[in-house]
């Protein structure tokens, strides 16, 4: 039960979080942070046993919806543990941080609910072995993320950004769902641990490309790959702890996680390599480019996150052993330094009121600790020795240089991006702290409190520690994770120092050029101002256009279809009906219609003729009472037909009902105006043609049906049994009150209901309400 409890505990604590918050006030954050802390320890406890576990993983299954193949099954291996540790570890700092950062905010209680629920969902996502339960958690992260982005919900921009994020990720999610279902159908199971070993089945199946595209659509949208990257910077409308947690360290990596996870099943093909490699590389470049174009602190960090996500995608695409090691190392490095930097951004906002980098400067005296650890994190970001970022960058260069395809393109993009990342790192690591003291919106009176500092300090330090102890980290978690992604054990390769080689050279070059770029940052921004124009036609604009297009289409469709005109509704229905029936009649049957006019008696012909003429008159007369009188004539003729063809009760009923109908019409028409000729002739002709078509359809149907009879009528039974069993000689009446009494019961209910309705309409008038 352990893993299940671990995953669900987040939801449980979330449910009680508002009360904890209310009861404990400012200490609530620390108390609630105990949960992620405990979870971290719990997950860490798997580490020692992982090496000896069978296949390097634990599998735990719980029944959920076994009939559908949906299970709560968990797969604990290097990859999921790496993520679980990041999620719970960073979660601890974020929850503690938020308790202070959002202190006094009226919605803090709900914030805890959402952030803890999110954490639980995220854990569920990365630990799930069942594709569908994975998807369930996947969508839960979308929803919680939506609610968190819209945290400042009275701000229209926050609402809009939240919707954008939700819409893009859910759209991808739906594609993903289809892809996962297809995978399960092909692989014969929803269990990842079963599917991961059947890669060849997938790669050789007709559906492979479909599955691949659908799954990647889900991953790309979730992980903000170009061209779906635009929602991520907008998501910065969320409070900073959310940005730090969801939009850098955890949720956006869900797509990366899934690509990594599915690499053994779907990877290893040219399509995989090209799609991931290209999209990843482009995203990487676009991300860092846009990051450099930003001055908003969170924007800048968000775009650099896009860069990181692109990098990870590219590496998974490359697919080599080195690439997988690089990816896992980079993932870890990025989570640590980006988490730290976002929290630092939060401190800048919280203490100095700065949201824009240009507002900052010279804050190192006021915030010395922050400065130090921001610098440390930036070093890792820049990939400077000896931070973990450096190790990752080395491996990255090595992986792209040896990429099985596109090595040149990827390498160039990687180096250029790395250079620009250095500039970004300098902007965040140097610019706010050094130089002349800027006139910030708020003057920081003192260093940030421990709750805010804990995260940056620990995370940045870990970035350094893991760099220094790269080999140790490598022996453990990273190589297990890489092995899970690679689908086979990987030879340990991770270390701080690999000697002088091409990657190191590239690293040095990028560092130097990056610093140069930093010094010319303003000029860079000016030169690339043309990008604003490009934005107008970029993916975000396309998104906006399609949304407004959808709303326009919706309005248009409603105007056309739901136009308020009853007769067009009728027209649509009738034309569809005639079409359906006639097409079916001519394509599915051998139409066989006998026009047999023999056996008609003279008076019957007279009656029918008058009936039809009366109907015609009721339609054409310009006098509404004349129409009613004609209706009466129609009624009498119908009654005569009933009588002439042996239906006595029906005849009586028809006569009585006809009379009462006329009385009713007369009572009501008294109030109504005369007929109006409201329709032009052309339309009347159209309507007449349609009416004729309907009439013809019914007549043809009647004739066509008359030529066939599959069985004798059951009415013989009633004729035989009416007197002996029903004790009545009027068979129709015996049917009504005995054989089919239920019909009659329904019929009188209808009558009673109609009467109640009439009564209510007449007596219960809205206009009488004073």
């Amino acid at each position: 039960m352990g893993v299940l409890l671990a995953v669900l505990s987040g939801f449980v604590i979330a449910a009680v979080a508002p009360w904890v918050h209310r009861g404990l006030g400012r200490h609530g954050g620390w108390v609630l942070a105990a949960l992620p802390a405990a979870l971290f320890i719990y997950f860490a406890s798997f580490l020692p046993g992982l090496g000896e576990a069978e296949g390097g993983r634990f599998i735990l299954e719980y029944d959920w919806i076994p009939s559908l193949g949906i299970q709560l099954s968990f797969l604990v291996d290097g990859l999921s543990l790496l993520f679980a540790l990041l999620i719970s570890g960073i979660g601890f700092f974020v929850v503690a941080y938020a308790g202070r950062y959002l202190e006094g905010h009226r919605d803090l209680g709900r914030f805890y609910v959402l952030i803890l629920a999110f954490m639980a969902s995220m854990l569920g996502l990365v630990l799930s072995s069942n594709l569908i339960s994975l998807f369930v958690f996947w969508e839960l992260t979308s929803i919680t993320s939506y609610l968190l982005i819209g945290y400042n919900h009275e701000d229209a921009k926050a609402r809009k950004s939240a919707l954008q994020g939700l819409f893009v990720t859910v759209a991808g999610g739906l594609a993903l769902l289809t892809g996962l279902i297809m995978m399960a159908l092909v692989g014969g199971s929803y269990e990842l641990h079963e599917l991961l070993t059947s890669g060849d089945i997938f790669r050789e199946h007709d559906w492979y490309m479909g599955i691949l595209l659908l799954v990647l659509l889900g991953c790309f949208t979730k992980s903000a790959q170009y061209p779906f990257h635009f929602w991520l910077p907008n998501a910065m409308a969320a409070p900073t702890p959310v940005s730090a947690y969801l939009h850098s360290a955890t949720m956006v990596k869900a797509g990366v996680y899934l690509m990594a996870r599915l690499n053994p099943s779907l990877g290893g093909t040219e399509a995989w390599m090209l799609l991931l490699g290209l999209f990843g590389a482009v995203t990487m470049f676009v991300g860092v480019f846009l990051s450099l174009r930003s001055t908003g602190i969170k924007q800048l960090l968000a775009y650099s996150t896009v860069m990181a996500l692109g990098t990870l995608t590219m590496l998974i695409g490359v697919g080599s052993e080195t690439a997988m090691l690089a990816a896992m190392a980079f993932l870890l490095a990025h989570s640590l330094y980006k988490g730290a930097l976002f929290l630092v951004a939060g401190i800048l906002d919280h203490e100095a009121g700065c949201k824009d980098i240009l507002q900052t400067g010279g804050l190192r005296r006021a915030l010395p600790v922050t400065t130090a650890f921001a610098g440390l994190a930036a070093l890792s970001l820049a990939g400077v020795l000896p931070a973990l970022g450096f190790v990752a960058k080395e491996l990255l260069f090595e992986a792209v240089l040896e990429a099985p395809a596109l090595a040149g393109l990827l390498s160039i993009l990687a180096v250029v991006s790395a250079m620009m990342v250095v500039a970004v790192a300098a902007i965040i690591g140097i610019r706010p702290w050094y130089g002349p003291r800027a006139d910030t919106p708020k003057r920081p009176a003192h260093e940030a409190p421990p709750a805010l500092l804990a995260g940056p300090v620990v995370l940045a330090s870990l970035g350094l520690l893991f760099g220094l102890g790269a080999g140790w980290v490598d022996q453990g978690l990273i190589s297990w994770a890489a092995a899970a992604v690679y689908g086979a054990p990987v030879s340990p390769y991770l270390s701080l120092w690999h000697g002088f080689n091409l990657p190191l050279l590239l690293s040095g070059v990028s560092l130097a050029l990056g610093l140069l770029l930093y010094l010319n940052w303003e000029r860079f921004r000016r030169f690339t101002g043309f990008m604003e124009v490009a934005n107008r036609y970029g993916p975000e604009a396309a998104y906006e256009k399609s949304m407004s297009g959808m709303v326009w289409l919706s309005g248009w469709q409603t105007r056309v279809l739901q136009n308020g005109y009853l007769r067009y509704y009728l027209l649509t229905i009738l034309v569809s009906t005639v079409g359906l029936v006639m097409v079916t009649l001519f394509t599915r049957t051998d139409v066989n219609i006998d026009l047999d006019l023999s056996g008609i008696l003279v008076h019957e012909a007279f009656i029918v003729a008058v009936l039809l003429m009366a109907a015609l008159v009721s339609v054409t007369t310009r006098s509404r009472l004349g129409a009613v009188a004609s209706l009466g004539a129609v009624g009498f003729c119908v009654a005569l037909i009933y009588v002439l063809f042996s239906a006595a009760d029906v005849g009586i009923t028809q006569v009585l009902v006809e009379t009462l109908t006329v009385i009713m019409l007369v009572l009501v028409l008294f109030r109504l105006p005369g007929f109006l000729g409201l329709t032009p002739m052309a339309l009347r002709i159209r309507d007449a043609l349609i009416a004729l078509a309907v009439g013809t359809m019914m007549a043809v149907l009647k004739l066509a049906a008359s030529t066939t009879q599959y069985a004798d009528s059951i009415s013989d039974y009633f004729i035989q049994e009416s007197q002996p069993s029903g004790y009545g000689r009027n068979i129709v009446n015996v049917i009504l009150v005995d054989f089919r009494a239920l019909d009659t019961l329904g019929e009188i209910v209808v009558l009673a209901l109609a009467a109640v309705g009439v009564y209510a309409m007449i007596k219960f008038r809205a206009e009488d309400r004073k």
Partner: protein
Amino acid sequence: MNSQFALQSLILRTAAHFLLPLLLIFSVFLLLRGHNEPGGGFIAGLVAASAVALYMFAVDVRSAKRVLRFEPRDLMGWGLLVGVISGVPAVFVGQPFFTSQWLELKLPLLGELKVGTPLLFDVGVYLVVIGAVLLILLSLAEAEGKTDHHHGGG
């Protein structure tokens, strides 16, 4: 107000006084023999309702309501209740709903009489039809008086 509703005709009014009982007895006749000859609860109910409607046109709405003695709504309710309940006794002898139950009555004066739940059911139909039709017609008639009053003539 309501007296305005009726046609001001002495001849019609007198004829209606005469026709009303005639129509009502006719309707009972149609109801009772409906099981064997054309007729039955529905037809009978319509005839009875027509009788009262005639009275409404000939005399006035209030008198028509008095003729009826019960509120049409209540007639409807009771009729429906009778109709539903007539299907229930079968259940107590272990048969499905609406299985007819017949009683042979030997009455001193009337001789043998076969009475069954289908007849009861037909009585329910009869009551519902009278109630429903008259609820409709009387409401319409009353509404006319009302709107006459409020908005003037049409």
